[in-house]
């Protein structure tokens, strides 16, 4: 009799373990699938975003092109009143200080 009980117990344990692992693997797989989908989606979004960035960079380069800027500056010359920088406008900080000092003395006199 005890032998039979033991056998039933073994069978039951086996069944429980089998169902348990089965269910575990199933859940694991579903999780993995969901993650894979999420990763794929993210990858796609990253690729799209990168594409968008490179499009924007290209657009910026087209907008920032000196030909276009020069054209705009010339067209709106009366408002902007811009002129190319001349060599005499570029000075070292030291010279600037001297010039400002000289100017101040001039004013105070």
């Amino acid at each position, binding site marked *: 009799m005890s032998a039979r009980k033991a056998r039933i117990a073994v069978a039951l344990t086996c069944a429980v373990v089998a169902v348990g692992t089965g269910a575990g693997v199933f859940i694991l797989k579903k999780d*993995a699938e969901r993650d894979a989908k999420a990763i*794929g*989606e993210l990858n796609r979004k990253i690729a799209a975003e990168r594409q968008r960035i*490179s499009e924007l960079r*290209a657009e910026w*380069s087209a907008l920032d*092109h000196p030909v276009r800027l020069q054209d705009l500056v010339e067209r709106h010359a009366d408002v902007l009143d811009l002129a190319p920088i001349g*060599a005499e406008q*570029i000075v070292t900080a030291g010279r600037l200080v001297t010039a400002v000092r000289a100017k101040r003395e*001039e004013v105070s006199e």
Partner: protein
Amino acid sequence: MTDTPHDDGARGRIILIILVCVAIYGVLGTRLVTLGLTPAAAVAGPAASPLDEIQAARPDIIDRNGEVLATDLVRASLYAEPRNILDVDEAVEKLTTVLPEFDPRSLRRDLSSDRGFTWLKREISAAQRERVHDLGIPGLGFLSETRRFYPGGSSVGHIVGHVNIDNAGIAGLEKTIDGQGLKALQSLGLARKGQSMAPVELTIDLRVQHAVRDELLRAKERYQAKAAVGIVLNAKTMEVVAMSSLPDYDPNQPAQSLDEKRMNRAMTGVFELGSIMKTFTLAMALDSGVANLNDRVDARTPLVIGKHKISDFHAKNRILTVQEVFKYSSNIGTARLAMLVGQERQRAYLKRLGMMAKMPSELPEGARPLVPQRWPKITVATVSFGHGMSVTPMHAAVAGAAVLNGGTIAPPTFYPRSEAEMANVATRVISPRVSGMVRDLFKLNAAEGSGRRARVPGYRVGGKTGTAEKVVRGVYADDKRLNSFLAAFPMDDPQFVTLVVIDEPQPAEGEQYATAGWNAAPTTANIISRIAPMLSVRPHFDDGVGQLADLGTR
């Protein structure tokens, strides 16, 4: 119960069956577990179409400040597989909310058909693509194509080149990039869309490039010239900062490049550059020790060699010093100096200056110079002042940078190169002492000689003019000229070398002359006054008060 052989056999079979079953389920079980544990990355997102993966990508090309000169643009096209659409009404309703330009009736007709494939809309934007994708309608998909776009346009056409319909580089640096292993990467499937590739950085400065091109355009119009070339080199590293050849072409319309007039004259056009070559003759005369700056050269009478007579354009008819030979651009004096150098040494110097072979650079385009086959005395004389031998403007610019930068030469480059790297690849042409003398000659010529109109206040420009008569049907025509101006700034320690070549200029309105001093030199001045601040060259005034006085009034 007795054990019989029969029983034994049955028991053995049962055990065998159990073992087999366990083994099979074991295998299935392990496989299930491994599948469940596989890293998710192996599964691609559902929206990625297989075509996305095979489209080859190219790296961006950017200038030295990061401005994009060439990039890939992806254009997605929306298609439908009507057979796989489950709910046509729902699909039509959703699609028209995102793409209102669709006509619901014709859309419904398209989607209700039993076809396997139909285009709905070509070339939709990335934002629209995203929104259609988010609708999640089954049976809709995207195919995307890569198109090369050049935001730099015509300004950099000759440098970046262009690609063919298969996105393979066929001209300019695009072709070079292919040759550097991009093709191999693409065929291995490593260079694909969506993967970031390191951009290719160039030495070109788009702002400088534009300034050079803009001034050349003005010069071309002002002097009604056929063509114009401008080159700006970093004298210390031979990096090409700008290179423009007009007329040029827009790489976004590659068909234009087939027009022969639009070829890159800076590297594929060969010209007899005339007097700027005297720079090199004087450099070799000084370096080989046959002459000193104050030596006297007889330029009283035209030089006669065989049946040829060499005379001067601005004839002084007196004995000149070597300095004066340069200042007055005396053909007679230069020829006499070249003959002192001698045929063999002259050729050796020219070879070291890179003038006897194609100028190596990253650009696939490049012309060989036209070098005379035989080299008699008359060739020694004519080559000394730039006739009888044709080189590309790039040859002259590089050689010019070499004799001015302290005497070292290296091939020009479009990829960044530091001064340390330059030291590794450079070879010596002339001694630093002689290079200093050439700089003095350039300074003198800009102060008192033909380069006066190239002066820019504050930037100490030095230069040499060249006015070459062009050969028309075998004889030199005196009304067709090729003018050039080779300059450097700042002259005491040149950082940049510029070369401007103007093809067949006419006198500008209100001017009588069309020699280089009247067109190529002022064009150079305009270019330098625009680009020097961009290139962070510090202006310097000898008197030191020009700036202060000016500041006071502001």
